C-alpha cells in the first residue's frame, strides 16, 4: 500500500511539472487539437482607443526637424545622401511618406485597435487615416504591390498559462519606401519592421501601451533602428479625429 501511495504521489509531482508544457504544446497547435483563434487566446487585451503621449523626442515628432537632423538614426552613407536630397521648400508629391509602418507609431495621434475577425487585429490611426492589419494566420501574406503599411504577421507571446500576461509581436514587410523622420530621413522598400506591443497599468487607473519598434533596412541603415513609443488608453473615441496625411507639418 505504501508503495502504491508513493507511486501516486510521484505521479502528482510529475503532473505538476509537465502540465504547463503540455498546455503550451496544445496552445502551439499540437496535432491533438486545432489552434485556438488568436482572439480567443489573446493573453492581453489591446483593443480600444489609445492616444500618443509625446513625452519623448517632441521636437522630432510634433514639428518637422531641420534638414540634415538625423540625430540617433544610424544611416548608411547612401541613407545620408538620400536624406540630404530632401528639400523642405518643395511640394511633397507623396504626403503619406512619413506615415509608413516603420514610422507610423511615432506620429502624434490616436490609434484604434479592434478585432477585424478572429485572427486579424486591425489598427487604425486618425493621423494620416492609415489602417494596419495584423494577421495571425501562418499562411503566406497575399502577394501584391508594396503599401505604406505593408503586410504584417502577428503572434502572441504568452507569459504562461494563468499568468494573465503576455505581449504581441508583429513583423511587417512589403512596405513602400518612405520617411523614418519627417525631414526626409529614408527607409527603403527592403525594410522589415518588428514590433512588440506590451501593456501596463497607468497610475491614474487606465493603461499604457508600449510599442517597441525595430526597423531593419539593409539599404539605408547600418544597424537596427530601435525606438519605443507609448500611448495612454482612452475610455472612448470622442477625441478620434481622422485627418489625411500631410507633408506640411
Amino acid at each position, binding site marked *: *500500500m505504501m508503495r*502504491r*501511495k508513493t507511486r*501516486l*504521489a510521484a*505521479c502528482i509531482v510529475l*503532473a505538476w511539472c509537465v*502540465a*504547463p508544457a503540455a498546455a503550451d504544446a496544445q496552445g502551439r497547435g499540437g496535432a491533438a487539437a486545432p489552434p485556438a483563434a488568436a482572439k480567443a487566446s489573446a493573453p492581453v487585451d489591446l483593443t480600444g482607443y489609445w*492616444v500618443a*503621449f*509625446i*513625452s*519623448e*523626442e*517632441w*521636437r522630432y515628432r*510634433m*514639428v*518637422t*526637424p*531641420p*534638414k*540634415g*537632423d*538625423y*540625430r*540617433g*538614426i*544610424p*544611416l548608411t*552613407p547612401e541613407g*545620408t545622401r538620400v536624406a540630404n536630397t530632401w528639400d*523642405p521648400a518643395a511640394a511633397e508629391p507623396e504626403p503619406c511618406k512619413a506615415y509608413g509602418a516603420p514610422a507610423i507609431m511615432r506620429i*502624434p495621434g490616436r490609434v484604434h485597435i479592434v478585432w477585424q475577425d478572429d485572427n486579424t487585429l486591425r489598427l487604425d490611426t486618425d*493621423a494620416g487615416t492609415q489602417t494596419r492589419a495584423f494577421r495571425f494566420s501562418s499562411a503566406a501574406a497575399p502577394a501584391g504591390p508594396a503599401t505604406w503599411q505593408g503586410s504584417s504577421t502577428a503572434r502572441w507571446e504568452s*507569459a*504562461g*498559462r494563468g*499568468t*494573465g*500576461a*503576455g505581449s504581441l509581436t508583429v513583423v511587417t514587410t512589403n512596405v513602400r519606401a518612405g520617411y523614418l523622420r519627417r525631414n526626409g530621413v529614408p527607409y527603403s522598400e527592403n525594410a522589415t519592421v518588428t514590433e512588440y506591443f*506590451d501593456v*501596463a497599468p497607468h*497610475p*491614474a487607473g487606465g493603461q*499604457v501601451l*508600449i510599442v*517597441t519598434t*525595430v526597423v531593419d533596412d539593409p539599404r539605408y541603415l*547600418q544597424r*537596427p533602428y*530601435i*525606438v*519605443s*513609443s*507609448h500611448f*495612454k488608453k482612452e475610455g472612448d473615441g470622442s*477625441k478620434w479625429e481622422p485627418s489625411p496625411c500631410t507633408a506640411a507639418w
Partner: protein
Amino acid sequence: MGTEPVHGRLVVLLLFALLTASPAFAQIDLAGSWGATNNEDLAGDSVPVDYTGVPLNPEGRIRALSYNESQYSMIERQCQGLPTFYFVQGPFGIKIWSDTEPVKGTTIAYTVGAWENRAPFVIWMDGRPHPSKYAEHTRGGFTTGHWEGNTLVAYTTHMKAGFIRKVGPPISDETTMTTRFYRHGDVLTVLAIVEDPIYLAEPQIMTRSFQLQTADLSPVGPPCVSAYQGRMPGESVPHFIPEQNPFVDEMTTRYGVPRDAALGMPETLYPEYRKKMKPGAARPGVCTINCVAAPPPANR
C-alpha cells in the same frame, strides 16, 4: 478496501495538480550587458530651456526656469548625481545582474549597475518592506520588485529631490517611480512612470530600449571627485530670475518649437496641441548643431 478512499483522494489531488499547475519558472533572465542604441534622444539636455515632453505644473516650471547649469561648478554640487531613472534617459548602456540566496538559489535582488553620475539601482526581490517614511532618502532611493508574468516590475521610493531632466525641471523627494522591464529576445524595453505630487501635473512616462551585447559593461562608474571650478564653498548659488531666463526662446529660434511646448505645458504632450500651432510655422532651415549622433565611420 481500506485503501480505496486514500486512492480516491490522491486521484483528486492528481487532477487538481493537472488543472492548476503553473510554470515553475515564469521569469526570464534579465542579466547581462544591455547596450545603448541611442536611437532616441531621451536626455533632451542640449538646450538650457528644453522642457518639451515634461508635464510640469506651475511650481515645477518656475523652479526649472530658475535653474542655472553653472550650479555644477559648485564643489558641493558636483557629485550630487542624478536620480535613478536617469538610466532610462542617459546615453549609456546598463549592466544587470542578480544576487542569489546561496542555499535555495532564489533571487534576492537585481541590480542595474551604476554610472558615474547615477547610483546603482538595486531592486529587492525578497519581500522586504519599504522603509518608514521618516527614513533617509538617498540618490538611488529604495526599490522593491516582483514578477508579473515575464515582466519585472519595480517600485521606488525614498529618492532625494533632484531633476527629471538635467537642464532643470525638478522632482521633489516625494517622487515615486514604477519601472517595468520587458524583454523580447535581444531587445530590452524599460518603461518608467514617475509620479511627483509637487512638481508634475501628471505622471511622466518614459520608455527606452536597449540591445543585448557580448561586450561586458562596467557595473560601476568611476568615482566622482569634486574640484575647484571657479566657485568657493559658500558662494552664491548660480540661478536666474525665472521670468528673466535668457534661454527661454532658444528652442523656438533653433527648432521652431513653440514656447509653451519648450516650457513643458501639460497640454503640449497630446496630439491635439498641434491644432494650436500655425501650419508651417515651424518650417525648418538647415540643422547646424547636434544633428548627427550615429554617422557611419566612413563619413568621419
